[in-house]
C-alpha cells in the first residue's frame, strides 16, 4: 500500500477501524477532538458505531458495557478526560475486559494547557484509578508508529483481557506525517464465549456469563488480585519493547526518553557526535512494562558516566529510570511541561552541564 499524508489524530481513528474496532465512544477535548470529528464521518461509511457521550465518565462505562459484550471498542481523550475515565478504567481492569484508551496528553495539572505534554506518565503507568491494576502502555514517537501501535493494542488487550493505553503527546496527534497502513487485522477476538455477556443464545454452552468486580470474601478478592498480578508479570516477561540509538559503541551519557521528546534527543545526539561527544539512548516504546533491565545494562556499560531522563514533565519517568539503574551511575532529569518541547540545544546544554 502507498503512503498517505495524515494528521496523527485522524490516522489513529483510521488505524482502529482497520484493526476491526468499529465501535467508538468519546467526549471532545483538545488536542484530540479531530479523532471524534473524523470518526463521526468515517464510522457510518464502514457500518460502525460512533457516539458522543455526555462526559468522559459516561464514555468509560459505554466502553465497559460494549467491551463486556466481547466487541472491539475504543475511545480517545486527553489528560483531564482520562482523569474522569479513570474510575471506569479501574472497573474494566477488575472485570478483565479488553479495550483501548488513547490519551493524547496536554499540560496539567488542572486545566493546565492545550499544548503537548508528557505529564500523565504516572497516571498511565501507576494507576490513576483505584486499586491494584496496571495498563499496558504504548508510547508512539511518530504517526506511523501510532498507527501500528493502535492496531497492535487491540491484539494485546484481547491477549491479556486488560485495557491497553496509547500514551501520545499532543504533537503525535497534531503532526501531519506520511503513513502506510498495515493490512487489516484479520484476527477475531477469541475465547470470548467464556466470559462475554453476549446473550446466552449466541453461545454454544448453556452457561450464563457474568461480568463483575465485587468480591466481598477477602480470600476471593486476594485470589482475584493475585490472578491480575500474574497477568502483569506475564506482560513484564513478554511485552517489553524499546528502541536503542547510538548504543553500540562507547558513550559517556545514556538518555532515556520516549515519544516526541525522543526525536529531539536524537537530533541532540547527532549534533553532539559531530563535536566528539558520544551519547546513547534507550527509547521505551512500552512504558509499562518498562525496559528496566535494558536500562540497567546500558548504564552499567564501561564509560557511561551518567543517565539522563528527558521528558515533558517535571520528572516522572525518571523515578522508573532510577529504579532501573539502581545506583550504577548518577541519574539526572531534564524537562519542561508548559507545552514547549525542549529544543535539541537545550538538551545538549543539559548534557554538557552533566559532563562538566
Amino acid at each position: 500500500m502507498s503512503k498517505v499524508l495524515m494528521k496523527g489524530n485522524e490516522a489513529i481513528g483510521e488505524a482502529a477501524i482497520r484493526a476491526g474496532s468499529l465501535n467508538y465512544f468519546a467526549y471532545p477535548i483538545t488536542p484530540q477532538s479531530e479523532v471524534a470529528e473524523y470518526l463521526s464521518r468515517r464510522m457510518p461509511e464502514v457500518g460502525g458505531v460512533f457516539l458522543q457521550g455526555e462526559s468522559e465518565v459516561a464514555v468509560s462505562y459505554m466502553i465497559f458495557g460494549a467491551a463486556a459484550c466481547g466487541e472491539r471498542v475504543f475511545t480517545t481523550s486527553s489528560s483531564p478526560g482520562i482523569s474522569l475515565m479513570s474510575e471506569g478504567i479501574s472497573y474494566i481492569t477488575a472485570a478483565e475486559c479488553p479495550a483501548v484508551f488513547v490519551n493524547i496528553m496536554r499540560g496539567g495539572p488542572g486545566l493546565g494547557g492545550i499544548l503537548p505534554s508528557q505529564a500523565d506518565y504516572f497516571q498511565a503507568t501507576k494507576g490513576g484509578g483505584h486499586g491494584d491494576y496496571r495498563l499496558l502502555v504504548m508510547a508512539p514517537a511518530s504517526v506511523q508508529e501510532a498507527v501500528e501501535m493502535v492496531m497492535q493494542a487491540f491484539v494485546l488487550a484481547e491477549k491479556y483481557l486488560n485495557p491497553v493505553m496509547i500514551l501520545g503527546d499532543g504533537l503525535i496527534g497534531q503532526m501531519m506525517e506520511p503513513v502506510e497502513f498495515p493490512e487489516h487485522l484479520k484476527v477475531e477476538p477469541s475465547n470470548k464465549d467464556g466470559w462475554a455477556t453476549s446473550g446466552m443464545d449466541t453461545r454454544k454452552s448453556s452457561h450464563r456469563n457474568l461480568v463483575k468486580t465485587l468480591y466481598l470474601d477477602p480470600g476471593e478478592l486476594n485470589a482475584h488480585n493475585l490472578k491480575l498480578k500474574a497477568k502483569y508479570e506475564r506482560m513484564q516477561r513478554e511485552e517489553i519493547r524499546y528502541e536503542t540509538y547510538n548504543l553500540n559503541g562507547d558513550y559517556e551519557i545514556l538518555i532515556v526518553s520516549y515519544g516526541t521528546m525522543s526525536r529531539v534527543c536524537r537530533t541532540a545526539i547527532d549534533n553532539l557526535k559531530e563535536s566528539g561527544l558520544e551519547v546513547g539512548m534507550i527509547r521505551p516504546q512500552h512504558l509499562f512494562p518498562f525496559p528496566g533491565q535494558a536500562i540497567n545494562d546500558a548504564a552499567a556499560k564501561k564509560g557511561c558516566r551518567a543517565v539522563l531522563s528527558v521528558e515533558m514533565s517535571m520528572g516522572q519517568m525518571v523515578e522508573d529510570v532510577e529504579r532501573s539503574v539502581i545506583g550504577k551511575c548518577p541519574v539526572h532529569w531534564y524537562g519542561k511541561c508548559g507545552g514547549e518541547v525542549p529544543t535539541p540545544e537545550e538538551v545538549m546544554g543539559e548534557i554538557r552541564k552533566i559532563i562538566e
Partner: protein
Amino acid sequence: MGKIFQKPEALSDTITHYCPGCTHGVAHRLIAEVIDELGIHGRTVGIAPVGCAVLMYNYFTCDFQEAAHGRAPAMATGIKRVRPDLMVFTYQGDGDLASIGLSEIVHAANRGEKFTTIFINNAVYGMTGGQMAPTTMPDQRTTTSPFGRKPSEVGMPIRMAELLASLETPGYIVRQTLVKPKYVTRAKKAIKKAFMYQMENRCFSMVELLSTCPTNWGMTPVAATKWVEEKMMPYYRLGEFKTPEDD
C-alpha cells in the same frame, strides 16, 4: 393438571439476602416473569447497580454485568449501541439513579437509548445504612438527616419520572408501587410494556417503583407499606407520565 404457580426460569434457586419485608425481591420476580413471558431469556443482559441489589445477578439466570455506582445507563448504552439485538435492562436505586448517576440516566433517556430501567425508589440509601437520598421525603429522618430532611437546606425530593417525562424525546415513563397486590399487578403490566417497547425498538423506558426499606426506616413491614401509601404516594403520583404514542 398444569402448574399454576412456579418460579420463573429467569430466577435462580439462590436465597436472597434482602431483609424481611423488603420489596427488592418482588421487583426481581416481576422482571423475571416478564423475561419468561416474552421468551427473551437467551438474549437478555441485566445490569446490577451498586446498592442493596448489587448481588441481584445471583438471583437471575441470564447474562449480567455489574455496574459502578450510578453508571448502569452508560453501560446499557454501550451494550445497545454495539448489540442492538440484545434486550438490556438496568436496575437502580434512588441513590444510584437520582444522585450519583443523574447525568447518565438523563442523557440516556434523552438520546432515546433502547433499554429499560427499573428504578427502585425507597427514599433512602439502603445498602450503606439509611442515609438521605435525593428522594427522601421532607422531615423524614435518616442517618444523615437526623432531625428530618429540611427542604430549606437540601431542597425537595426529586421526582424522577416527571423529570424524565419532561424531555422532548419519546419514551415510556411510568411510576408504580409494590406495596399491595393490586399495585403489584399494575407494576408487572408496566414492566412488561416497558420491555415490549424495547423489543419493538421504540424508545427508552423507565419504570419507577415506590419501594420499602423497613430496616432503615425503622418500621415493621406493615408500617412501611402504610408509610408508602400515606407519605410517598401523595407526592410521588402513580401512573404513566409519558408513552411513545404521546408524540
